[in-house]
């Protein structure tokens, strides 16, 4: 069996994750297990911050064996352009400095978030009314597109054309919105 993450090395770590009552089988190689935060510490006596700090450093090879994370000097110098927080500081305090930090450290967040949120990395909840204005529109367009696909399959071309026009006008609206913001 090959590793489901890298599809290169053989899967040597087999886990069953139970998230909200749903079982998921995970088959990965040791490297990917570490990189994705699937490996457990086996110790309960970690405080949340220890646990998080450990995760933040887990980008380097075998960080769990106490190797220095500085084997990636390039990555370590990562610094948020907005608030000035470096990745090292982030790892030490376990907190972000500002909203832009999320983009700055984006490459490294998935393993951390997966660990903390039972495998989840993407938001699936409320969208704010004003701040998320575009997103409501995007969601709507997505829904129309699904609808369009169905209509075409059912060969209801007249309806499909209406739907297509609706998508175009919504997309126009979206572009104007985005243009207007800049």
């Amino acid at each position, binding site marked *: 069996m090959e590793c489901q993450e890298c599809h290169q090395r053989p899967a040597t770590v087999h886990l069953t994750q*139970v998230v909200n009552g749903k079982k998921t089988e995970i088959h990965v190689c040791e490297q990917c297990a570490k990189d994705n935060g699937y490996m457990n510490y086996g110790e309960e006596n970690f405080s*949340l911050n220890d646990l*998080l700090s450990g995760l933040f450093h887990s980008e380097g090879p075998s960080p769990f064996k106490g190797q220095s994370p500085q084997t990636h000097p390039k990555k370590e110098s990562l610094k948020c352009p907005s608030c000035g927080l470096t990745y090292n500081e982030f790892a030490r305090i376990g907190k972000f400095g500002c909203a832009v930090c999320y983009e700055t450290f984006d490459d490294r967040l998935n393993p951390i978030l997966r660990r903390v949120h*039972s495998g989840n990395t*993407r938001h699936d*909840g409320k969208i704010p009314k*004003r701040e998320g204005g575009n997103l409501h529109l995007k969601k709507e367009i997505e829904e129309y597109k699904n609808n369009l696909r169905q209509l075409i399959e059912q060969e209801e071309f007249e309806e499909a054309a209406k739907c297509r026009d609706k998508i175009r006008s919504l997309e126009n609206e979206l572009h104007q919105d985005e243009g207007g913001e800049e």
Partner: protein
Amino acid sequence: MSLKQFINEAISPWMKQEGPDSDIVMSSRIRLARNFADHPFPIIAREETLSKVLAYFEENFQQTSFRDYKDFELVRMRDLQPVEKRVLVEKHLISPHLAEHSENSATLISQNEQVSIMVNEEDHVRIQLYFPGFQLDKALEQASQLDDWLEEKVDYAFDEKRGYLTACPTNVGTGMRASVMMHLPALSMTQQINRMIPAINQLGLVVRGIYGEGSEALGSIFQISNQITLGKSEEDIVEDLHSVVKQLIDQERKARETLMHRSSVRLEDRIFRSYGVLTNSRIIESKEAAKCLSDLRLGIDLGLIDHIPRTILNELVILTQPGFLQQYAETTLSPDERDVRRASLIRERLQLEHKE
């Protein structure tokens, strides 16, 4: 000030009401973490930034009202004495973190004290909403409306992929912590709760004792809340918590019945002994008080004691904490002095019921 008057002012109006299943669920809470998009988070922000955030809140929300939540009052932490902050923490209106970081932090409290909006806590904004009893759905609905109301004037830090951005990665996504405070004496006595906690943890929920940790919970009061905030909708999170709490309620009721059935004399003995301690002791530590109050409350729920209202547990759990004891005494007290004051406050409070 008379005790009655003191209690009236000390206990939040919503706490005096009963809600659904309030024989077991003491309160339901929703907390939403939000941040301004264009300011650094409080943990690294300069004081002048924080003071700007605070001023913005004062300007826009001081003395405003939103539906049932009238006359929001902005309480600046730096204007409060340490004991006053402690009292707010003990009432759960502010977090210990807010009390410690006082320079430019504040909270907006609605007149009925159901809503507290903390400003410059770990995040810029923390909306907190309480309901008596088991009312998670209602709490979520109203918290979300309050959130929309704030968003009319606050540019939130929000990202399509990660959701509401928070200082701590454990809150990102919905920024929501839903929690329920439960009184589970029968499950604790029979130690069934110890077996249930690991199973509940597996579902992405956390169980905490409000005094100690986990199974060591004193006074058999447990807080159950969601751990995961990312990748699930607010409604789903609340639904999961709801279904677990519902099961715990059923189990607790069953355990109470079994206890009454199998060892009613022992149970009655335990309850009345505790009642005796509460009405007669001259020195009582918080640990013992918590245990005895839990027994007393169980006695009320089981109908063994019928002249005392049920809300006495919620009330005395709050009033017998160090901050409140000192506020009532109007002086600083050593731990030994507190134990004496605690005993007398409880005695006095229980005597009020005799007179009526």
